[in-house]
Structure formats: C-alpha cells, structure tokens
C-alpha cells in the first residue's frame, strides 16, 4: 500500500475546502435571498413550503432519519446530543440536484429540475468525545414551483389581432434554519443536547405575464412574506445496556418546542427593475407547532448499522394570522399532523479499522421512508410521499474526510382527484471534511 506524501495530502485538503467554500458561496446567498430557481414541486406552494431536513449525508442516504445515530465521522444535526461524540473539527456541506416529473390525469407530464443547497454543518469538540458544539445552516422549508400557461388575447378588437402570451405562476424562497447546539456525554449511557434554531426566510409567489413582444410590457405581481423567529430543540440518546459484545443498541429522541415567527407580507408590481408596492403591508404571527422524534440504532456487528426513526409534528394545531395557500386563518385549514417514518442500513466493510484497504473503507447505505405532508391543496386529501434512498461514502486520503454521493428516488401525491403526482429523483453531492484543529503541537 502506497500512501501519498504529506504535501500531496495537504494539497488535496486545500482542494476539498475550496470546493466546499465554492459550493456554499454559490448556493447559500441565493437560498438565503429567496432567489433560488423555481423549478420544483407544485406542492411546495402550500403552507410554508415543502418541509426539508438535511441532518447529514449519512442520515440522508439511510432514509433521512438517524436520531439515535452517533458517529465521529459525521456531524449529526438531527439530534444535538450527538454533538458530544466529536474528536475532529468537522465541516460538511452538500448540494442536491432534483428532477421532478409531474403528471396528472388527462394531462401531458412536465419535467422540471433544479439544484439547491442541502445544508452546511460545522462542529468541533470542546472536550474530545465528551462535550461538543455544532452549527448548521439548512433549509427548513422550500418553495419552488413554476406553472406556465400559454394563452392568447385579442389585443386589438379593431383588427382582431390575437397576441399570444404566457402566464407564469412561480414560487421561490423558503425558510432557513440557522442552528447552534451543544451535546454532552452525561455518562457512558446517557447523552443530552440542546440547540437554538433561528428560523428565517422569504416566501415569494409571483404571477408573470409574458408576451415575448416589444409591443407589450411584461409585468409581474409578486407577493413576499418575510418570517423570522427562534425555536429550541432538546435531544437525548441512551445506550441500552446488556447487549452482547460487539453489538450496540441506542435509543434517541428529540423535542422541538413550538415557536412564533414574526411575519410581514407585501405585494408589489414588478417591471424589470421597477418595483411598486401594492396595497398595504400586512403583519402577523405564524405559530410553528411542537414536534418530536424517536429513533433507534442497532449494530449487530460493527460492519452493519441499522436505524429506524419516527417523527411527528403537530401541524394540526398550526395557527397563523396570515393566510397561506391551503391555510386560511378564518376558514377550515388543510393542515394535518406531519408524520414521517424511515429506516435504513449502512454496510461499512472496514468498520473501525482505519488501516483497511481503500475499497473496504467505502460505506454503502440504503434506506426508505414514507411521509405524510403537513398540508394539502384540498381538505379531504393528504399528500403522502414514499421513497428509497441510497448512497456511497468515498474515503479520501485525509483521515476523517469523505465524499458522499446520495440518491433519493420517490414519489409524492397522486394523479387523481385533481392532484399531481411528482416522481422525483435527487442526486446529492456532499463533502465531509474532518481534521484536528485548535490543538497545540507538541514541543520538540
């Protein structure tokens, strides 16, 4: 086995960091400013958008759960109690490319695709494998849709001239979650953690009338809702005692406390760079409900890790002073409790042997999930998703650093009863960088 020399390792380390910084630099600003592309699911139009959760690339490939998982190789932001298990400073981030084919009974299908930020995580130990902190920036929800309708209008009754135009309904933006948390190993069995989550973002909905003719002035009406607020999350993990040697069973759980987002909404008429405010700006509270999650992780042998998770969010009690698609403050809301269940497995041939061959240090992951959305276009319909996930974790020459490729194939909704069925495929590229920082080099 030939290890490369130290300078080459250092060069690749720099390359990885540059890739990560570029990835964040390109995508984070657009995400934060609600300028992301508008080619996603029409279901993202409803409520606060499609709920997102990216906690680590490992969790993502194992069905999206992982509340009971802990790994020194990944910063698991799904449960702040896992921040305790760190001995490396860790910096991770990823992008997701999503292609959606939407279909409905009696209509030709349409395909949209876009890329977006999966999330960025940063963590380091305060005391190695005892106390650690973690920070993350990830989407909480995402609005991204576009529906184009071609029409004609008799633009000149005198001549009977018909002019074609396209009405483009677009939505973009979403809520982001900026989280800071701490995890602590109470004893060999119990791990506790807590985090503060700053949730903020802009939801934009626009209707653009486009004529593709110099005789007409294209104009758009844009509705923007800005929201921000602070939430808190508490979590635990408990190592079940009495397991046979080389086996492990861990229980994990989180509790997300309810919070109130302050929201303001305005409408504007937009023509190129001109933006005229329409009507008056509305203000109000948007109350996010509490939620909890329970998970279990089991290692029958070090090579195999199995997880199962259940998440619940009490959206049936969602309240807002402002109306959203699917939610009217003075009417019957189309909200229901969000439920998500997932399970996954990881096969890591090298397991805990850092000196195993390169190929045996590749981790293979598989998962599946099902989810009931918190909101629906129609009150008597629930929007369900089901999907399978998979991923490869490619080790790098830098110990503790991996490049992860994830895949998520699934479908959402149905094509009957006026609904849309989305068949989506997501491809995720994640960089996961870990190294010892903040350490004083030994003298001599």
């Amino acid at each position, binding site marked *: 086995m*030939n290890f490369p020399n130290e300078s080459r390792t250092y060069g690749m380390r720099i*390359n990885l960091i540059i*890739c990560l910084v*570029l*990835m964040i630099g390109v*995508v984070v600003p657009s995400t934060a400013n609600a300028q992301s592309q508008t*080619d996603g699911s*029409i*279901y993202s*139009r409803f409520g606060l958008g499609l709920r997102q959760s990216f906690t680590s690339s490992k969790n993502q490939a194992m069905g999206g759960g992982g509340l009971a998982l802990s790994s020194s190789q990944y910063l698991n932001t799904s449960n702040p109690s896992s921040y305790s298990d760190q001995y490396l400073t860790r910096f991770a981030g990823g*992008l*997701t*490319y999503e292609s959606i084919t*939407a279909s*409905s009974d009696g*209509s*030709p*299908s*349409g*395909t*949209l*695709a*876009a*890329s977006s930020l999966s999330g960025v995580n940063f963590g380091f130990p305060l005391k190695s494998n005892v106390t650690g902190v973690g920070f993350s920036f990830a989407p909480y929800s995402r609005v991204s849709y576009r*529906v*184009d*309708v*071609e*029409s004609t*209008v*008799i*633009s*000149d*009754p005198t001549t009977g001239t018909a002019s074609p*135009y396209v009405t483009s*309904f677009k939505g973009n933006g979403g809520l982001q979650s900026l989280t800071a948390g701490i995890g602590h190993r109470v004893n060999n069995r119990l791990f506790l953690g807590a985090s503060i989550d700053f949730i903020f973002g802009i939801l934009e*909905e*626009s*209707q653009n*009338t486009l004529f593709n003719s110099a*005789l*007409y*002035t*294209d*104009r758009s*009406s844009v*509705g923007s809702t800005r929201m921000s607020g602070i939430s808190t999350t508490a979590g635990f993990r408990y190592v079940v005692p009495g397991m046979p040697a080389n086996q492990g069973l861990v229980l994990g759980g989180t509790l997300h406390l309810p919070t109130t987002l302050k929201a303001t909404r305005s*409408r504007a*008429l937009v*023509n190129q760079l001109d933006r*005229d405010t*329409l*009507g008056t700006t509305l203000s109000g509270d948007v109350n996010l409900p509490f939620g909890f999650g329970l998970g279990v992780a089991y290692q029958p042998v070090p090579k195999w890790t199995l997880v199962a998770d259940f998440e619940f969010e009490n959206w049936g009690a969602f309240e807002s002073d402002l109306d959203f698609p699917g939610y009217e403050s003075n009417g019957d809301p189309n909200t229901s409790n969000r439920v998500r269940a997932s399970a996954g497995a990881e096969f890591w041939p090298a397991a805990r042997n850092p000196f195993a061959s*390169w190929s045996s240090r590749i981790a293979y992951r598989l998962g599946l999930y099902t989810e009931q959305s918190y909101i629906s276009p129609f009150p008597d319909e629930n929007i369900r998703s089901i999907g399978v996930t998979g991923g490869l974790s490619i080790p790098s*020459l830098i110990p503790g650093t991996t*490049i992860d490729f994830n895949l998520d194939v699934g479908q959402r909704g149905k094509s009957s009863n*006026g*609904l*849309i069925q989305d068949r989506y495929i997501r491809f995720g*590229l994640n960089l996961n960088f870990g190294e010892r920082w903040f350490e004083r080099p030994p003298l001599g």
Partner: protein
Amino acid sequence: MYNLFWSKQRFVVPLLSLLILSACDDPSPIGLNLVDSQSGDTQVTEFAPSFAGHSNFGDVTGGTNITGAVRTLFGTVSDPVVGPFSMTGYMDFINSSNVSSEFRAAAVSFADLELNLDYIYGDTLNPVTLDIYEIGADWISESGRADSFLDAQSLVTSTTVMPEKGVFHIPLPSTWISGKDAVLRSTTFVDEFHGFALRASQGSAVLGVHFSGSSLRASSVPGDTVNFSLSKVLSASSFVSDAANPEYLSLRDGAAETISLRFPFESKDFGEAAFHRVIIRLNSADVSSLYPVGFERSNPIAVGLRAVAVDETTRLNIIVGEIAENGTISFDSATLANVVQSSNLANSGLDRFELYFPVESNTVGIIAFKKGLPATFGPRAVITYTSLN
C-alpha cells in the same frame, strides 16, 4: 488505486459540481388547478376618452439655426375650420466674422432683408401687406412658445408681397439705415441690434421664412455686401376672433392652444392592475372641402401625445404618431402603458393627455376632429391589462 482514483477525482468533482448547478426543464401547465391566480386573466378593454377642449399651452415655435423651429411664421388667415388667426414672426441676425475693413470704414448706403419664403398657408391669389417693426430688447428663442409676444413697436417699413415660394427682398428705408449705421458696422452688432418683427396688415395668408437663405444684407462700398445671417426665430399666435367651425375640434400647429384628452376611467374601474399595452386611436376629419380654391395648405404628417400632471407644469412627451392617409392616428408605446400604469398606482399625478405638433413640424397646419361622433369613431383607448385584485 489511490493514484487512479485521485487523478480522476480531480476532474470528476468539478464536473459533478457543474452538473448539479445546471438545470433543465420542460415546464407545463400541470398544477394549474392548484394555483390560485393572484390576479385575474389578461384581458382587453376599450375606453372612450373625451376631448376636453382647448387648454392654453403654446406650441414650441422658437428656434435657432442649430435647434428648434426652422422658420418664422407671419400673416393673417381666415381659416374655415379654426377661424381667423394671425401670426407674428420674429427674427434676429448675427454679423459675419469676416467683415472687410472697407465696410467698417464707410457709412452704410444700402440695406435690405433677403428672405427665403418656403411655406404658405392661405390665399395665394392676393398679395399680403407686411409691416416690419424693430424689436426693442434682447430675447431668447430657445423653447419659445406661440404665446410669447415681444416688444416691437417701432415701425421700420411696410411692403407688399405675393404669396409665392422663393426668395424676396424687403428694402430698408434710408432713415433706418442711417440711424443704424454705426450698429451695422460695429463688432458688437449682436448686442446692439435685436431683430425685426413681421406682421401682416392686409391679405389672408401666413408666410414662413426659413433659416436657410435668409439674411439681413448691408453694403457701404459698392459691390461689397455684408450678410447678417438669420440667427434665431420665434412665431407668436393670436386669434383675430373666436369664430371656429362649431362642428370640429381642431388643433393648429404653431398655436397658443392645445387639445386635451381625458379618460373616463378612474382607479375603481380597474382596481389594481398591470397594464401591458395601451393604444390610443383618433380619427381626424377630412376638411379639405371646406377650403376655397386657391387656398394653399399642407396637411400635418404627425401629431404627438403628451401627459400632463395635475400641477399643470409637468409635461411628458410620450410618442409622436403618424397621421395615416385615412386620417387615423395611433399612439402605441411602452411609455404610454407606463404612464397609465403609474396613474393607476396613483404615483404620477396624471391629469390628462394633450395633443401637440412636433417642433420639427413648424407650420400652421391643422388637424380637425369631428364632434359628436359615436364612440367607435371618436377617440378610443385599447387597453391590455391584468387585474391584480
């Protein structure tokens, strides 16, 4: 193994990043039933603006040999559509830089006006008697309007000319020449002489003198004539009597009045709306049969539309529309849509629209609109908009 992987990865990672950052799409109307329109459908409606009569805002009639009006207009006409009106033409001159020393050394013995008559409106069968006055004070021609009259009380001479296009001469009397001898030979001629005003005392035609080929000529030495080129012009208009044809609402080029257009709609008619296109159409009347034989007139070829704010001061020229052979005028521009849009948003303070003749026109031609026509033949606006309510 390591070498192979990392050598490929060096290219694979950037390529994958590019792939991820790119997006292709085939949008469709799928999901339309799940989208509530923020606004209504795009639609077209017709409104019938009404003429709001004349308002006192003079046409631009001032100009220099660089910009603005290209001629000065003077004379009196009894027009069968707009009624009798008269024009007073003002002109000033500039001395040449290469005047000979011989000219400055001897007294001026001769002076006349050499004028290039290039425009006639009215009776061409009878002569026009002109009175030429000297202007008493300096004046500014740039952006001068048809309601700008200058102080010119000192009669210099009178002459009679036939309304025929071409160069004609008006000899200046010896008394005036001797009185202005020093000024004509002075290097400060521009500061000391302020030009002539031309008015008609008899005849029924308005004449136009073009910058080109028009000058004040003077000589002190036989065979050595100095030309003082025409440097600035202005035309002022006044009605002799208010006897316009009651069947028409007319707009005259070079007049001190203009026509206003008002839309009957208010914000409540559209609510909040996005205006994509606004066309205003007018049908001018054929009034040629009202003019007698021998009455020379040329039809205007274009007319402009401008917006007027409620402060009666702010005016925005929007577009100039050509007058078609059948008399139709169509104003269609993004600026017009933007003006209506701003008005709907209550941002602009728009009060009305006005019609005007472009400065380049510089005639006394008229355009007339028949009164009392049904809406389909009168002024109308075709508006393409999307309701935002």
